[in-house]
């Protein structure tokens, strides 16, 4: 139904005859008399049906109702954070053996480097919690919640550079244009809160680094009401949401009503489902004029909550403030809350850079998990922390006593998850002693996506959308649920 202009040929002679041929003549006649009957996949225009998802029932009993994805953009170094490799301490400065790399492709940034010296982490690792997970000194707060976490140390991806890698993680394809995870969930499950979008994006302000494009939270070929909506810090959290000066709430309402009438006429004439999307978005935007300021206003948060997330949470737009905001959005049943924190791309000056990144994110990430837990929300929320790939075990650039860099490494990296349906205090997968390849229980990006969908009650193979003649899904033709991490 969504193929370009398909709706204009909906009642062609061929259509009509084939319907008659299938014994559906009566139905076909009805549609001819009233095109609105079959025009939109989303059904009649009026009513609240359109905020519900395409799946009237989930495939499985869901383990979680919502996801908070703390995306660490740039590729955080697993070597400095979670994947402890004592061998690198002893082989520090020695060449990466060919027997480990086996001629695997490197980026053009280190591919022509004469020497690939192994680099140890200058940050010491200690075991934490009952689970005894190794966490470096960089993450003192995360270290305190390791018994809540499911660490996946064997993530691997296909892309070697940022944009394809992050696009792959978020849309299931390295090539831009597919719907983002949050859009798929909005399409499949709909919204639990008619006053807020099902898919909200929060980006740490004033961070440099690898750019983030809005297509990362784009709806691709899905109806546009499923796209992520970015909430910004500052006066206008959602751009162009507030009434312009001189327009009162009443006149806005009247304008919308007239506009809806026009849209409805247009929809009846053409049957383009995108018109329905447009109507829904106008109405949502109207309701958001009240709901967004309410959710963004942190003044009702007590001091001990700011203490928990760290003082930075008082300053809008920081990662800590966004984590707190994520909790507030989760409390209001926003389905997919996507945070981005840029700046993890440490090709050089890694020790200083990563220390700063951890300072900005460590406490708030841990605080978010604990805050959800004490509210009883960790049982039906999934929290994910991770980047688009990992970093090499060898040094990029000059290796000095206290400074070094690491290049992109797609063959292994660590992410963590916690929440309903996921094992706690658990570490899955293993890399070799050099931290270069996965040696046990690899988890591909598609498997991660399939697992995420499973936790929300969706069979990733059955949530599809037909576009340009084929059915698409988040995991393309791949992906298996990683059952070993399920509780």
């Amino acid at each position: 139904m969504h193929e370009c202009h398909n709706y204009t040929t909906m009642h062609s002679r061929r259509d009509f005859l084939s319907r008659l041929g299938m014994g559906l003549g009566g139905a076909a006649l009805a549609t001819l008399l009233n095109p609105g009957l079959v025009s939109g996949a989303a059904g009649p225009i009026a009513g609240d049906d359109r905020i519900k998802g395409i799946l009237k029932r989930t495939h499985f009993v869901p383990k979680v109702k919502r996801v908070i994805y703390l995306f660490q953009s740039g590729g955080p170094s697993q070597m400095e954070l979670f994947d402890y490799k004592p061998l690198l301490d002893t082989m520090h400065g020695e060449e990466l053996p060919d027997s480990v790399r086996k001629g695997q492709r490197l980026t053009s940034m280190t591919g022509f480097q004469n020497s690939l010296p192994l680099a140890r982490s200058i940050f010491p690792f200690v075991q934490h919690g009952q689970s005894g997970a190794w966490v470096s000194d960089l993450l003192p707060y995360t270290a305190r919640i390791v018994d809540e976490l499911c660490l996946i140390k064997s993530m691997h991806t296909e892309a070697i550079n940022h944009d394809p890698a992050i696009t792959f993680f978020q849309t299931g394809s390295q090539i831009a244009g597919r719907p983002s995870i949050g859009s798929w969930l909005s399409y499949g499950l709909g919204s639990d809160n008619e006053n807020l979008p099902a898919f909200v994006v929060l980006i740490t302000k004033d961070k440099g680094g690898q750019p983030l494009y809005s297509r990362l939270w784009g709806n691709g070929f899905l109806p546009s009401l499923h796209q992520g909506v970015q909430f910004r810090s500052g006066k206008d959290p959602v751009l162009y949401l507030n009434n312009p000066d001189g327009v009162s709430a009443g006149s806005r309402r009247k304008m919308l009503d007239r506009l809806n009438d026009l849209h409805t006429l247009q929809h009846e004439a053409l049957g383009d489902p995108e018109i329905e999307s447009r109507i829904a978005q106008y109405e949502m935007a109207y309701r958001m004029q009240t709901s967004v300021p309410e959710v963004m206003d942190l003044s009702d948060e007590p001091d001990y909550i700011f203490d928990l997330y760290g003082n930075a949470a008082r300053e809008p737009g920081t990662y800590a403030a966004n984590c707190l905001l994520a909790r507030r959005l989760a409390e209001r049943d926003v389905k997919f809350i996507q945070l981005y924190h840029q700046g993890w791309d440490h090709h050089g000056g890694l020790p200083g850079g990563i220390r700063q990144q951890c300072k900005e994110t460590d406490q708030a990430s841990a605080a978010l998990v604990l805050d959800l837990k004490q509210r009883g929300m960790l049982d039906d929320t999934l929290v994910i922390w991770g980047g688009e790939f990992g970093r090499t075990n060898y040094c990029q650039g000059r290796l000095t006593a206290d400074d070094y860099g690491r290049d992109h490494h797609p063959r292994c990296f660590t992410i963590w998850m916690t929440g309903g349906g996921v094992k706690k205090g658990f570490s899955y997968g293993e890399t070799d002693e050099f931290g270069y390849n996965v040696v046990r229980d690899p988890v591909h990006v598609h498997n991660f996506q399939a697992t995420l969908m499973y936790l929300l009650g969706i069979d990733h193979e059955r949530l599809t959308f037909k576009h340009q003649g084929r059915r698409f899904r988040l995991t393309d033709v791949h992906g298996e649920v990683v059952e070993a991490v399920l509780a």
Partner: protein
Amino acid sequence: MKKALFSLIVGLLILFVMLLTTGSGSPTDFDLFLGRFHPALVHLPIGILLVAVLLEILTRSGRFGSYSKAVSAVLFVGAWGAILAAFAGLYLAQGGGYDDWTLTWHKRLGVLIAVLAAGAYWLKERTRNQTHRETQNQRRGFAAVLAGLFLAVALAGHLGGELTHGEGYQTRYMPDALRNLAGLPDKEDLGRLALENPEEATTYAALIQPILDDRCVACHNPNKTKGGLLLDTQEGLLEGGDDGPAVVSGRSEESVLIQRIWLPLAHEDHMPPEGRPQLTIAEAELIRWWIDQGASFEQTLAEAEVTPTVQTILDGYGLDEIRTGIFALDVSPADSTDIEALRAVGVSVTPLAEEEPFLQVRCTNPAACAGDNLAGALQAVTAQVAWLDLGRTEASDTTLEAVSRLENLTRLHLEQTRVTDAGLAHLKGLQFLEYLNLYGTAITDEGLQHLTDLPELKALYLWQTDVTEAGVQSLQQALPDLDVNLGLSLDPPTTQASDEAEES
């Protein structure tokens, strides 16, 4: 005729003596060589004796009266065939490894067939040689013997088939309607494990002992104890046999049990012996996995660490679909009008999942969830509501009265509501309740006492209530598996100081 009859009697006598004297000792190779003629010999008398029955029927129908003379000759050959087949069969049985009951009856029936065939021959000959016509009684007596013979051949043949091909061979592809008549489960349930209590079933009892029972216990039981090994009990497995322990915990490669299974079939020490039903690769793999995991008799299936191979096997057993808690119940879906009535109150109602009758009910309108309307609408779906979210609404103790009737409730959100200690008394009967969120309410230690009888309660949230540590402790004595949350803090880590010093 006398000579012929005499030869049959001699043959039968030898057969009787053998039946009484041979058990399943340790046969010589020559014994087994003779024994293996059984399958070759056995079909001959079956056919011949059935021909005798057929001829007799034809004779009596009148049109083929001349066949009468042939009947006794056919019976004679059939009787000798039966004796020889039974002869070989008794040798074959010495090899052991068969199901005791089936074997015993197969033997008895085999000998009975030989006796009946010889008896029928004698009767036929007697009437043939007498001067007067066959009497009515003779006719009936002969018919009865032949009928018995026919029955015995059919039964013995069936039991023989079971011995060779395993139990259930004949009924495997029987239509389900017939299977059910015979008290058998549907075909698609074959090979699936129906565990009564899947959460508590041990790996050993659910998966391992059944394999041993099927494949090993016929020879390794207190009556036979081949190789000094008992495989019908845990003690026997650990004690082992003449070659030492059958199982070395955690080391399948050193366990004789596994070594014997993996030997080539033709090898003398291969188990089960050649010619007996063998373990499937999946069964051998399960035993190997169980030993490598520590050969525990207590470990439950839920605790076991399942490898991908084993998962594949378990999927085949239907163990991927263990249904527990409310999902094991037979609850019919709610009426759509009842669901609509519930929605009309102002709550969101969603099915838990496709093909599940259960519902999640979420209150989106704070005022709607306080009144009698909700209580009334819930009446019609008391069995179906599994998750109920009344958090941050005006729900109060009176609302909980309606909640008390939701017999299959597993998750209940009451955070930031006006419920009090007295209201919690209504939750006493919720035997499936797993999750209870009371954060931000006026609950005190007193209220917790109403929760001590909730057998499934796993998570209880009590942040920002008046509950004390002592109150939680006394509740946890009653419910040791319960995880109680009184709020959390994230104190500055001790290593922070040194980090900051380094930075400055």
